[in-house]
Structure formats: C-alpha cells, structure tokens
C-alpha cells in the first residue's frame, strides 16, 4: 500500500511542475547565493557545512510545506484522505517524498562544495554519504508532519516552518558540526554524527507514531 501511495504522490509531484519547480528554484537560489558569498570565507569547512544544511533545511521543510499546501489546494490531498487507506501510510508517502527531496538537495549542495571549496581535504570521504541520508530521515518526516498539521490552522503553511525549524534545530546543528569535521578531516565527527543520526531517527519515529491525528485533521 505504501508503495502505491508513494508512487501516486511522486506522480502528482511530477505533474505539479509549477509548484515543485518553484520550490526547488528557491532552494537552488539560496544555495547558490550562499556558495558565491562564502566561497572565500576564512573558515571554509564551516561555511561549506552551513550552506549544505541551509539547503537541507529549506529543501525538507520550507519546500515541503509549500508542496503539501499546493496538494491540498489542488484537491489531491482530499481525495487521498477520503480513500480507505491507513492515514499513517498517507503521511509516510509524503515523508518519504520530502525526504527524497531533502536528501537530493543536500547531496547536490555537498557536490557543489567540491567546486566552490576545492581546497577542503575531506572531499571524497565516503562517510559524507551519511549526511544526505540523515537529512532525508530527519527532515522529510518532520516536514510532512508539520506541513500536514499546519493546514488546519488559520495561518496555514506559514506555521509549518515555525514549528519544524525549532524541532529540527538540534539535528541541523549536529549535522552541521559533523559535516564540518568530515570536510576538514578533523576529530570529533563521530559524536556529532551519532547525535544527528539518533535525533533524526527519533524525530522520524515519533512523527510516524503521532501522524494519525495530524493527518486526520488535514
């Protein structure tokens, strides 16, 4: 069931090119401005890590909220919620799709740092693969949960970012430290990476557990 729901949602994303393209353009612009502005910063590892997680946060949370709001405005979400399917699966399909967006955006930002920060010694470190994966696990479900929950408020999708950013704060900070240490090949990356992974898994698990009431009201 989750496979067909995810497939349905991805097909909807492919058809709603205007919404997805606008959201991805916003993410790309933020990343590009950051890279151009900070490529010669003295602490290049920290600047590169900050841009990577800025892109991850905007890709997973801001763009996610916009996509879910657009799906509701178009009537697609109502149709799915009326169908006889488990509401947790409805949430999971959106969480996976948003996680995919966040993960790909993070991976693209990491790849761009190779061009803009060529002197960093950590480029090519296979452990960097963990960074987009953690971003996808933590930010995708959280973006879907807050995006769905905020639809039942009078302020709508605007609240989604206000709810999701504080909760994702520890994940973003720990992920930023892990990315910085891996790019600079300095010690201490294990603790940050472990914390970020644990926090992302806990956020995803909790979001899944409480997704039913949040999806009910959407």
């Amino acid at each position, binding site marked *: 069931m989750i496979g067909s729901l995810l497939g349905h949602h991805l097909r909807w994303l492919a058809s709603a090119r205007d919404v997805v393209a606008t959201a991805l353009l916003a993410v790309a612009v933020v990343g590009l401005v950051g890279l151009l502005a900070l490529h010669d910063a003295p602490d290049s590892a920290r600047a590169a890590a900050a841009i990577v997680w800025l892109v991850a946060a905007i890709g997973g949370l801001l763009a996610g909220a916009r996509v879910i709001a657009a799906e509701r405005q178009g009537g697609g979400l109502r149709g799915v919620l009326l169908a006889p399917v488990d509401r947790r699966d409805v949430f999971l399909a959106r969480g996976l799709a948003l996680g995919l967006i966040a993960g790909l955006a993070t991976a693209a930002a990491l790849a761009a740092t190779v061009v803009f920060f060529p002197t960093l010694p950590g480029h090519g470190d296979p452990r960097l693969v963990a960074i987009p994966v953690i971003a996808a696990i933590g930010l995708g479900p959280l973006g879907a949960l807050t995006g769905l929950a905020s639809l039942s408020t009078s302020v709508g999708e605007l609240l989604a970012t206000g709810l999701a950013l*504080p909760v994702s704060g520890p994940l973003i900070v720990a992920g930023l430290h892990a990315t910085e240490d891996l790019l600079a090949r300095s010690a201490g990356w294990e603790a940050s990476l472990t914390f970020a992974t644990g926090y992302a898994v806990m956020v995803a698990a909790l979001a899944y557990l409480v997704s039913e009431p949040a999806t009910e009201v959407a």
Partner: protein
Amino acid sequence: MDRERWLAPILAAGAGLVGAAIAASPTPPECLPGTRVPGCWEYALGQRLLYVHVPLAWVAYLGFIGATIGAVLVLARDSEPAGRWMRAANETTTIFAASALAAGLAWSYEFPIYDPLADAKVQATIVLVAALVGLWTLAASANPAQRDRLVASLTPVAFLSVPASYYASRLVSPHPDFLRETELTLVTGLLLAAATVGFALLWLGITWLRQRTLRLEERPLW
C-alpha cells in the same frame, strides 16, 4: 473542599520559598576570577541568580514533561481536561524557560569572560523556547474542534528539545556549573532545593489557573 481555595496558599508558599532562598543566599567558599564586581564573587548579584536560574530551568524541563504527559493522554483517550492541561502547561513552561534564559544572560553580564552565545546549552534552550512558542502559536491558530489532537500530535516531537538542551553541555560544549566545580554546602543545597520547590509550586499554581481560564473560555454561553 473546593480545590481552587488551595491556589492562593500554593502560590504564596511558592513565592515565599523563592524569595527566602534569594534573600538568604549564602556565599560560595571561594572567589571566582573574572567577575565584574571587584573583590569576591560573594558580593556579585550573579551568585544570587543561582537560586533563580537553576530552579527555573529544572521546572521548565519538568513542565515540558507535564505537557507531554497531557499530550499522550489526549492521543490515547481524547481527554478534554488533559488537552486544556497540555495547552496551559505549554504556555506556563514557555514563560519559565524564557525566564531561565533571561536569568542566565543576566548572570553572564556579571561574569564577562563567559560568552553565552557560544554555549551549546544556551543555543539548545533558545531552540526549546522557540519550539514552545511554535506549539503556542499552533494552539492559538488551530481550528478549535481539532486543536487538542493537533497540538498533542506535535508536543511529543517538540519534547525532543528537552534532552537536546539537557545533554548539550555534556556532548558539545561545557556549561558553567559551579555546583560541580565548588563543594555544595548543606545550606546552599537546601536553599536551592527550597527555591526549586517554590518555583515548581508557582508553575503548578499558574498552570492550574490557566487551564481553569481555558475551561471558562471554551464553555458554551448557553
């Protein structure tokens, strides 16, 4: 007996304990370097803030636990009183957590060699306050018929900021902790415990009053 009759004594006892702890605050045994006030640390205002900052932070953590218990009851039993309690606890805890931050920043003014913005615990506590403000905004803007379940679904997720704030000083960067660095005397320990009990009673009293106000606000007029 009407439970509301106990509120005034509870609030008075809480405020009294806090006031007594602050007024009678004894001094740590040694002078600490870097204080703005010349002479020993014992004359600095910051030392007395110990009896405000630490209890407020602890009560804020416990308050978030109270709100999360309310959220779990809402999700499990659809309990209306638990929903009001959860929303009231979120509001009171926001004020307590923000006050703990403010007291800590006031302390840091007395101790200029410490940079609060570089302290991971301060950063994590700012995140915690922002999460609480987010929940408060959600409760204020949600459809009243769906409000409790909506807030209850996000409170346990936002609760993750409590362990993040608590463990930030151990995992990322150290937080000033004179209770560990200096030997805690019996009197100081008792006064700190009294202040914590006092603030906890204040939290309980304010939360009780707030959930009662919410019940009156939500009662149908006819």
